[in-house]
């Protein structure tokens, strides 16, 4: 076969492939537009505790024996916890269950108007300690490992620092902000001179989900449109579309925030940077990260635009733990915990670290 003939064959095949994909794009594009929301959070579970905005799930075991220490995942207050359980094969919860962990998850519902007064005290001195107690009761074990994601990590840190006698066996912080003055654009937009948080909270009571989502989207304004263009181009690829739809659903289901919690977070953490300076007081208790002595793992993403590496970096130095480790992985804020990147990179590292400390 001559070079010219081979080249012509290649071109013909390419053209044929493009035509087939164009046809598929049209057929599947219609399905894409009319399809209902993709199902998420399908791993079997029980709701073992619920109070107001709080939900505590216990997932059904998927192995013949489990590690002695149960694991409690704490979700960020701005989003739904189904990011831990997007779809079969794309679920961190399912992965942990299959690796032999007993998994519990703290999820949040949208706070109602009467919950506008929730504060850091409620989350760290009431909700998390109560959930830890429920995990102890459900598992029959004294020790509990806590894994916090993003703001869930910050809440877990505050809980751990103010409950030095807590039954905490291990603490894992995933992309957790500590030095809030390194938050990039957020610091500019919430500049104390221009951002009137008191007026915002006093007027609205509950900070709407749109306001919260806008804060995320404005950091990468082209991301959504580029994502839509990419999914159109990949419409023939069922796996890609399925993955896009579950992530898109998660992104669209941002939660509103309790006003007082927003006020306190803005004043104490963003403006005062008090978690970093050790001046934070929650529920009358000083929050000093140095008082955390349990084994600690902090996992950070190299290209995280919401919680940049510099923002999480001081954690390792600040905690009093002797058994501590930082893992810096490629990826962004969400791809660190979900999606193909997480399956390959983060989940196996988390399993390896936690398994050794869960007996």
């Amino acid at each position, binding site marked *: 076969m001559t070079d010219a003939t*081979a080249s012509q064959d290649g071109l013909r095949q390419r053209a044929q492939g493009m035509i087939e*994909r164009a046809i598929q794009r049209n057929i599947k594009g219609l399905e894409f537009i009319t399809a209902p929301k993709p199902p998420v959070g399908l791993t079997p579970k029980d709701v073992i505790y619920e109070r107001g905005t709080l939900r505590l799930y216990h997932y059904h075991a998927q192995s013949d024996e489990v590690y002695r220490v149960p694991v409690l995942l704490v979700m960020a207050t701005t989003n739904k916890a189904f990011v831990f359980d997007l779809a079969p094969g794309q679920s961190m919860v399912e992965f942990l269950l299959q690796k032999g962990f*007993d998994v519990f998850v703290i999820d949040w519902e949208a706070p109602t108007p009467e919950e506008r*007064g929730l504060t850091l005290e409620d989350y760290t001195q009431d909700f998390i300690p109560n959930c830890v107690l429920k995990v102890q*009761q459900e598992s029959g074990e004294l020790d509990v490992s806590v894994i916090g994601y993003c703001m869930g990590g910050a809440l877990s840190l505050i809980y751990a620092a103010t409950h030095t006698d807590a039954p905490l066996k291990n603490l894992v912080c995933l992309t957790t902000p500590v030095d809030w003055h390194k938050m990039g*654009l957020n610091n500019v937009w919430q500049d104390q001179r*221009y*951002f009137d948080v008191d007026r*915002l909270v006093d007027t609205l009571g509950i900070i709407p989900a749109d306001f919260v989502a806008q804060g995320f989207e*404005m950091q990468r304004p082209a991301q959504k449109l580029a994502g839509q263009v990419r999914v159109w181009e990949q419409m023939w690829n069922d796996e890609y579309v399925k993955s896009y739809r579950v992530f898109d659903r998660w992104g669209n289901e941002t939660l509103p925030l309790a006003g007082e919690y927003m006020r306190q977070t803005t004043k104490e953490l963003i403006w005062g940077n008090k978690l970093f300076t050790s001046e934070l007081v929650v529920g009358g208790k000083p929050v000093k990260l140095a008082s955390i002595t349990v084994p600690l793992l902090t996992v950070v993403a190299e290209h995280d635009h919401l919680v940049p590496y510099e923002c999480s970096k001081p954690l390792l130095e600040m905690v009093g733990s002797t058994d501590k480790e930082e893992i810096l992985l490629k990826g962004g804020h969400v791809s660190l915990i979900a999606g193909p990147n997480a399956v390959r990179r983060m989940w196996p590292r988390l399993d390896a670290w936690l398994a050794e400390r869960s007996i």
Partner: protein
Amino acid sequence: MSKESPPDPAANFREMVTKWERGFDSLANQVMGTEGYSRSMNQMQDLQLGMQSMFKEFMTQNLTNANMPTRDDLVRLAESVGDLDRRMARIETLLEAMVPSNAAVGSGPRKGPPRTKKPPSAKAKSSTSKGGKK
């Protein structure tokens, strides 16, 4: 036979989208990362909040005149129920801590598979030591 495959227009398109996204985000971040932008954005927000506040006052006044409960009245009512709920939860927690059934905490698994799983390193050690005894 030539090993070079013909150019893939789809790959070029994907690359173009990625470049556009990065360029646009970078430019937007430069613009939105300025003090001026922050000031304007927050001024706009204050304006919206002011209008919302005025509208709320107007509606509250009308509802009061019509002898109807306002949103704040309903929220206050819900808050009272929420307070009761929180008190109940505190009492429940205290009772659970006092009642002997709580002794079950730390006394082993209550349900589900046995909590005997060992990490791979422990299994490897145990198989090595077994091998050594032979």
